[in-house]
């Protein structure tokens, strides 16, 4: 293990000299966690995230992660992660597909309990039937859990977002979990050049007493504290307390916007945003869109790209403004339900101009030609 020094996250993210390495998505997870000054990681195997957590285990063996073990199922792992976070540790885990479903009850629990957990989701198709191939329908199910959701386009995003996620999650006025999503095998098992932060740097240590709720360690007050009790029993009338609590989690989500703006540079990224036709996408669909847009622009079609990096909180105002001029908005997705198109239709002024697709799912790849067809069709 090499000696690491704690650095200011702004220095790490914006100034430190990066080195490029040709690595897989799983390896990008390793590189991020190596610099995360992580207390604990808990693992459970499920394709395609197993390799990521193997590598995190190797980091534990090397000394970069202080505690690590394999749990017995995803619900148990996410529960243990909650216990560790309530105890004041910085903790990480990963899952995807059926694993996400198995653990599901814990996700809104994490948010309600104000736990700054970072969890990577390597999405894969949902049973029945079974497929291990990429499909991000699980993101639709997670939209209302109160977790921040960042969608990585590729390994670079995955690497950067994991580290930034800790810094956003741990802010006192945020302090809710962050899910960093990646479209399964497309990223985890493919190699690309990733610009890594210096390996002798690590994030500042998590201070659990910056938490907006007491830490479960018998070293802070109040002592008579349960996380989290049946509030409806308080004076027998506290239904408003539950409602107010839910609203507070929502508020925490809104507060995260300014930190996401600071670290990620924005909840979205745009290219040729003044174009007549816009392709709006997140995750791997952005990569495929880039190729389609390149060809379309060579053909003289005025088309631009909006890459959405943050699904929750959703960049409502940005999208409303950016899509107001466009004549057509194409939304390619790697899922059947079109959750991104639906989110977009909820916020833009003219939902009719949204092209609901192209969509592929169940592990199918999305040839750029599919997107190109929709772009060309939109010109007519």
């Amino acid at each position, binding site marked *: 293990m090499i000696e690491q020094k704690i650095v200011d996250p702004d220095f790490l993210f914006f100034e430190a000299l990066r080195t490029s390495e040709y690595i897989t998505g799983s390896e990008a997870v390793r590189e991020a966690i190596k610099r995360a000054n992580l207390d604990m990681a808990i693992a459970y195997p499920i394709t395609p995230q197993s390799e990521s957590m193997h590598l995190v285990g190797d980091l534990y063996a090397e000394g970069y992660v202080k505690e690590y073990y394999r749990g017995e199922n995803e619900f*148990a792992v996410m529960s243990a992660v909650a*216990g560790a976070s*309530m105890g004041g540790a910085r903790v990480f885990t990963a899952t995807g597909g059926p694993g996400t479903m198995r653990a599901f009850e814990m996700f809104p629990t994490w948010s309600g309990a104000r736990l700054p957990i970072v969890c990577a989701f390597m999405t894969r198709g949902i049973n029945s039937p079974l497929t291990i191939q990429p499909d991000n329908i699980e993101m639709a199910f997670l939209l209302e859990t109160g977790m921040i959701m960042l969608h990585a386009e590729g390994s670079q995003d995955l690497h950067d977002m994991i580290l930034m996620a800790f810094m956003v999650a741990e802010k006192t006025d945020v302090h809710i979990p962050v899910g960093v999503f990646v479209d399964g095998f497309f990223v985890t098992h493919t190699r690309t050049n990733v610009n890594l932060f210096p390996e002798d740097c690590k994030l500042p240590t998590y201070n659990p007493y910056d938490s907006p709720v007491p830490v*479960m360690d018998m070293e802070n007050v109040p*002592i008579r504290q349960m996380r989290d009790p049946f509030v409806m029993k308080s004076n027998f009338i506290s239904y408003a307390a539950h409602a107010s609590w839910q609203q507070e989690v929502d508020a925490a989500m809104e507060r995260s916007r300014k930190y996401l703006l600071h670290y990620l540079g924005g909840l979205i990224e745009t290219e040729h945003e003044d174009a007549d036709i816009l392709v709006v996408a997140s995750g791997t669909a952005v990569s495929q869109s880039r190729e389609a847009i390149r060809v379309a622009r060579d053909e003289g079609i005025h088309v631009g790209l909006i890459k959405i990096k943050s699904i929750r909180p959703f960049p409502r105002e940005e999208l409303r403004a950016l899509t107001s001029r466009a004549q057509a908005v194409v939304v390619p997705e790697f899922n059947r339900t079109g959750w991104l198109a639906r989110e977009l239709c909820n916020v833009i002024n003219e939902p009719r101009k949204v092209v609901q697709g192209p969509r592929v799912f169940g592990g199918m790849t999305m040839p750029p030609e599919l997107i190109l067809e929709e772009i060309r069709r939109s010109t007519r």
Partner: protein
Amino acid sequence: MKTGMLRISPGFDDIMPSEYRELVDNGPYGQGYAIKDLGSFKELLEEHPLCAGCGLALALRLTLASLPAPEDTVVVGSTGCSALAFPQVALHNIHSLFGNQNAVATGLKRALRLRFPDKVKDVVVIAGDGAIADIGLDMVMQSWLRRENLTTIMLDNEAYANTGGQESGMSVQGAVLNMAPKGKNFPKLSLPEIAQASGCAYVASVSPAKPKQLSKAVRRAILVARDTGPTYVQIYSPCPTNYKINSKETISYIKWREREGLYKTTELISQQAQAFLDTIEEKS
């Protein structure tokens, strides 16, 4: 708990309600109280909504009074009647969901060990029979198989009491309960034996009818869990409400069950645990 942490700030003594002043002036933190001292100190459990005659409430009070180090104990509970008492307990405690209490406790224990390497933090699971033997059996056993340094204490009222008295794995065969209108058709789980086979270094089955025995078991279990391995204590805590026992007769009901051989007290101690207990009990 850092020494002197539980102090009322200057100038606020006169406005703090009495239950807090009592906790500071006469609480059990760092005092080494035991059940023999009950009645002379401020108990950890404040006024709670459990029924008159509740065996669970009594078992909980005795358990809390038996903690070797309440000042450094964090409890992980689960949904059930005990979850209605725990907000009123003056210890940090976590309400897990239901069944995942041992998984939560595992994460918590390991985190506390990282953050306080030079201090002992006892993590104790206290939950009902539904949470431990049914919905949570998998995760409870896995924490034992992993040899986590946890104490698991079951408040066994042989039913899902808080939801209206449904049959649980710990109900006796033949008991007619909700969701078992024709009587339960499989035997009460023998969890002490399962605990031992799964790696628990110390296992006991007790009841509040014998408070000293209960207290000794809880104390032993927590001390053994510190370094030797996981431990399990099962406390028979009858529910007068769901079993239609007169609330004044909970203790005599327990005694009757024991006389009839329908509830057995046990103690299963591994060699390693026995050696450990011999050294510490010799000293005291």
